[in-house]
């Protein structure tokens, strides 16, 4: 091994991880080619790769990707916005906290995807029911993040700002907003995961488009290769968003 490559090998964990993944895929491929795996259940990586390539080559995937993305991002944005508003309101107005907290606690305790069929009845099989499911998943998470966050703001920092002559507005701007932003950012990855869960499960239940719909279509046709290909797409998409969210978090929370 050349000097530089060995250096990288020792230092970069991801190189070793990538290597392990390649080895695993190679073994899988070899066993599959040897005829020891039923392609109906577990197609070879090359077969999955070919299906993946077809999906993109004939452009069949794009409307589905777009549908899932729109639903997830729409639900994410709405969920964060509503979660912040309700969280702040509950933290500031005790009466609202009394009303909201039990509702949110129940919603938090149950798997919220049980609402999926209801949303389909209410909102139809279009994108609205997916956004709604994605939204309810995210909003409850963000509500608790903001609500408990505001209550846990460091008293010493609040007093410091007051003794330096800061008024109520200064407290909101220099203490509460940055704290709330920090908590939301540190939960952003979880929120992204929730948003996609909502969109995909919604599409699973009833839809005409979307990666979730494509998955259930693959299931009904016993097409394991297609399933694996879609799972790979979803993995790639979520991984990409995680990386972006991670970068954002790292930059905005660089003081942390």
């Amino acid at each position, binding site marked *: 091994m050349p000097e530089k490559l060995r250096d990288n090998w020792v230092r970069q964990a991801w190189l070793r991880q990538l290597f392990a993944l390649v080895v695993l895929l190679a073994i899988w491929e070899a066993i599959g080619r040897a005829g020891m795996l039923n392609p109906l259940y577990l197609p070879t990586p090359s077969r999955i790769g070919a299906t993946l390539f077809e999906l993109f080559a004939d452009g069949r995937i794009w409307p589905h990707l777009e549908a899932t993305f729109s639903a997830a991002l729409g639900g994410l944005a709405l969920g964060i916005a509503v979660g912040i508003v309700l969280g702040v309101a509950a933290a500031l107005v005790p009466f609202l906290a009394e009303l909201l907290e039990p509702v949110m606690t129940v919603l938090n305790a149950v798997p919220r995807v049980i609402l999926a069929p209801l949303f389909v009845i209410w909102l139809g099989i279009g994108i609205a029911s997916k956004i709604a499911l994605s939204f309810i998943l995210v909003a409850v998470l963000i509500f608790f993040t903001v609500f408990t966050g505001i209550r846990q703001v460091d008293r*010493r920092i609040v007093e*410091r*700002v007051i*003794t*330096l*002559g*800061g008024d109520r507005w*200064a407290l909101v701007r220099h203490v509460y907003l940055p704290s709330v932003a*920090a908590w939301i950012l540190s939960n952003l990855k979880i929120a992204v995961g929730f948003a996609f869960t909502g969109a995909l499960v919604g599409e699973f239940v009833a839809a005409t488009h979307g990666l979730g719909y494509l998955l259930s279509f693959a299931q009904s046709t016993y097409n394991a290769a297609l399933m694996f290909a879609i799972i790979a797409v979803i993995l790639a998409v979520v991984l990409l968003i995680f990386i972006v969210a991670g970068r954002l978090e790292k930059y905005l929370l660089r*003081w942390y």
Partner: protein
Amino acid sequence: MRAVIGLQQPLSGSVETELARGDVGILFQDDALLPWKRARDNVALGLVFNGVERRKALAEAEAWLARLGLAGFGDRFPRQLSGGQRKRVALAQVLAMKPKLLLMDEPFASLDAIVRARVVKDLVALVELERISVLLVTHDLEEAISLSDEIYLLSQGPRARIIRHYAIPIPRPRDPVLSRTHPAFAPLYEKLWADLSREVDHRAEAA
């Protein structure tokens, strides 16, 4: 102290002062810098609250950091500073407001001895230069004697009251370390310790 600065209403009695609230600065036991603001922005905070234009406030903040030995550290976040440096930033934050009265509640308790001695020395120099009055609460008798002109001994709380007053004849300007070698130091220390012990013992018996 919380009553003097207006964070708390006194249960009884009143605070008589000719100072506006902006003339009183307070330094807490554990520094509470805003973790998401750089040292410079932390120091400028009070100035900005009091209507100083941002750019001017930041320049002034840099100057205060420099006076406290932190020139070039303005860009750091509190997390990137040592305990002593954070304490200096907190000090700069309060001194930048040009207080006439500075309240301190065991402000250096969290620092190790050497850092503490150095921060205290710089603080004393600035306080003497700017002629700021300081009200210091401490359990450290040596610190009390070496820094103060007058000491009030409080009884044990709750409902602590003043039980004794001492005048400290060590001249100014002072070096807080060297003033411990002043001839008046040892006798005062002995007296203060005896009074304090009696108070503590007295309480222990009552309990």
